[in-house]
């Protein structure tokens, strides 16, 4: 404030005026850009709700809990694809978060300096691969590998366990929730890793060096210094990855099996919201069919919104428990 005042004294009134009008124009411009995002969001939500209203009017809230998907008799329900989306994305995060944490830690704390930049660039390149390529790789390389080596092992060893066995038993198709989760994890890792690496670099050296001076191991520094310092940004990065996993379409549709069937086993095929829409939209020949697909899209929108809201709440709670900084 003070420095601004001093500056203004040195300038004549006209220039100050022009300066302020330029400032106002810039403010409007920036505000307009922000408003555009809000407008696009509102427009997307409204048009999806509008397109979906026939489905919701016909099936009511049962649309959410019905496992039906019968294009011939025009009976539709969202439960199977919704669960498929949530479960495959959940598996993806379970794998991607620890791995990304490890990569980011390696790149910021452990790796020799000459190795850091090439590996970081390689990871960012991974993020640029189109998802259809992941889908084709999944279909032609990864699915046969899973069918031949991984699925039979899981079925034989975990499938027989009492209680949780039903989650891991099934024929060795190579396709299904588990495979989809792994492929999604590979797609999400670059995003989460990039964010984590960036924020880990912001941790002040004196904090880390103090800890090392006290005799802390690299792990202890990571867990007690780096992670608490960057917690908020790390969670933000994780949810960025989750957002991508929830909406991923092409890669999932190739490896998930696209079966409108509810099954508890992770080895069995399922369906996801985005895959169902991509698969069926072109030939959705009745208005209720099309409306049901748009309703699925609306549901995905809500699902993402809920996930982001939970993330916010979680962050707020962590901050509160920590107390004012």
């Amino acid at each position, binding site marked *: 404030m003070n420095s601004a005042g001093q500056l203004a004294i040195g300038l004549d009134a006209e220039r100050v005026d022009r300066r302020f009008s330029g400032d106002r124009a810039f403010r409007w411009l920036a505000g307009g850009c922000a408003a555009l995002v809000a407008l696009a969001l509102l427009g997307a939500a409204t048009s999806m709700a509008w397109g979906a209203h026939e489905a919701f009017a016909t099936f009511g809230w049962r649309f959410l809990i019905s496992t*039906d*998907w*019968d*294009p*011939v*008799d025009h009976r539709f329900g969202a439960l199977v694809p919704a669960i498929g989306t949530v479960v495959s994305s959940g598996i993806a995060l379970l794998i991607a978060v620890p791995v990304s944490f490890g990569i980011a830690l390696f790149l910021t704390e452990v790796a020799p300096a000459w190795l850091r930049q090439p590996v970081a660039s390689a990871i960012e390149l991974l993020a640029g691969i189109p998802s259809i390529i992941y889908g084709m790789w999944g*279909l*032609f390389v990864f*699915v*046969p590998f899973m*069918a031949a080596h991984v699925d039979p092992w899981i079925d034989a060893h975990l499938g027989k366990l009492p209680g949780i066995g039903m989650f891991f038993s099934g*024929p060795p*198709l*190579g*396709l299904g929730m588990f495979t989809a989760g792994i492929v999604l994890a590979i797609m999400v890792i670059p995003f989460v890793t990039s964010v984590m690496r960036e924020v880990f670099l912001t941790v002040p050296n004196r904090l880390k060096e103090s800890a090392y001076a006290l005799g802390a191991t690299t792990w202890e520094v990571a867990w007690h210094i780096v992670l608490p310092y960057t917690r908020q940004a790390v969670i933000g990065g994780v949810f960025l990855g989750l957002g991508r996993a929830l909406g991923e379409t092409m890669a999932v*549709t*190739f490896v998930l*099996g*696209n*079966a*409108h069937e509810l099954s508890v086993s992770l080895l069995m*095929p399922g*369906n996801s919201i985005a*895959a169902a829409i991509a*698969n*069926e939209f*072109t*030939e*959705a*020949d009745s208005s209720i069919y099309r409306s049901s697909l748009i309703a699925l899209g609306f549901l995905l929108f809500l699902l993402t919104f809920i996930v982001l809201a939970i993330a916010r709440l979680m962050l707020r709670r962590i901050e509160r428990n920590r107390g004012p900084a």
Partner: protein
Amino acid sequence: MLNCIGSNRIGSKRIGFIARAAVLAAIATAGAAHATDITGAGSTFVYPVLAKWSAAYSEKTGNRVNYQSIGSGAGIAQIKAGTLDFGASDKPLAADELKQSGLGQFPLVIGGIVPVANVEGVRAGQLKLDGATLARIFLGEISNWNDPAIAALNSGLKLPNARITVVHRSDGSGTTFNFTNYLSKISPTWKAKAGEGTAVNWPSGIGGKGNEGVAAFVKQIRGSIGYVEYAYALQNGMAYAQLKNAAGQYVQPDAQSFAAAADTADWSRAQDFNLIMTNAPGEQAWPITATTWAILYEQPKDAQRSKTAFDFFKWSLENGQTQAQSLDYVPLPKSLVERIESYWQTQFEQ
């Protein structure tokens, strides 16, 4: 100063040149306007052969045919909205639906849909199935390759004790429509449980995206059975099955058995060619033979474009056999082409 004038003169000369070029270009475009570009969209099934036909046709006439394979459903929607010169659909429209929108339709080319299986020790053309057994497999009622129902049809073949995995299309498609139409004709249980459509409520199995997706899954999953267009089965070296047709004969899928189905189908009674060729009565007829229909306006908005469209279809139906055969489609039999051309005279304002 001198320099300046010089460059100016060059400048004006250049402008003159550009102007002349522009005039020439304008004349050239005006000349090209004699050639008409027409636009069609719809079925993905027919896309490869339409692309070849349009390339050959435009080489001959200068007219270009632009076809977008956006799916039959979308093709029908677009022609009804009036944004196309022709639509193409794997599923015919009913006579009253055509009348309502002022449209007419006729078949373009024939293709076959074949069951393909991945069973140890079974090569292409060895496995024999009938419609009822095929329906029970896709219903999930028969779930092992050593099931007595399959063994009864395959006395010479040793079938393993292996789980059957059904593979179907995950996207809506005309291939699925013809396949499920056949199963519905044969099996009342199938008709009640799943029915026919471009997408149905599959009682069992996994879904692959497109013919290529189904082909990939069947190749990878041991003990799987699926259905693809004949060309995909050939190109991927897949083990297709023989089928028992309506006449009780086992037939191999090939150009002859597809043509036999088109020949023996009773087109004379089908108004607007609204006839699904599945389960055709002929001795040699392949039971899951399919066609794609072109859909056009009876009273076109643009006479010139409509004329070009009919010229293109006439040329394709009469001269496009080699292109069709090279892609493993079957050209329409001559009798059917004649029937289509007389339909044009009565149905369309040309």
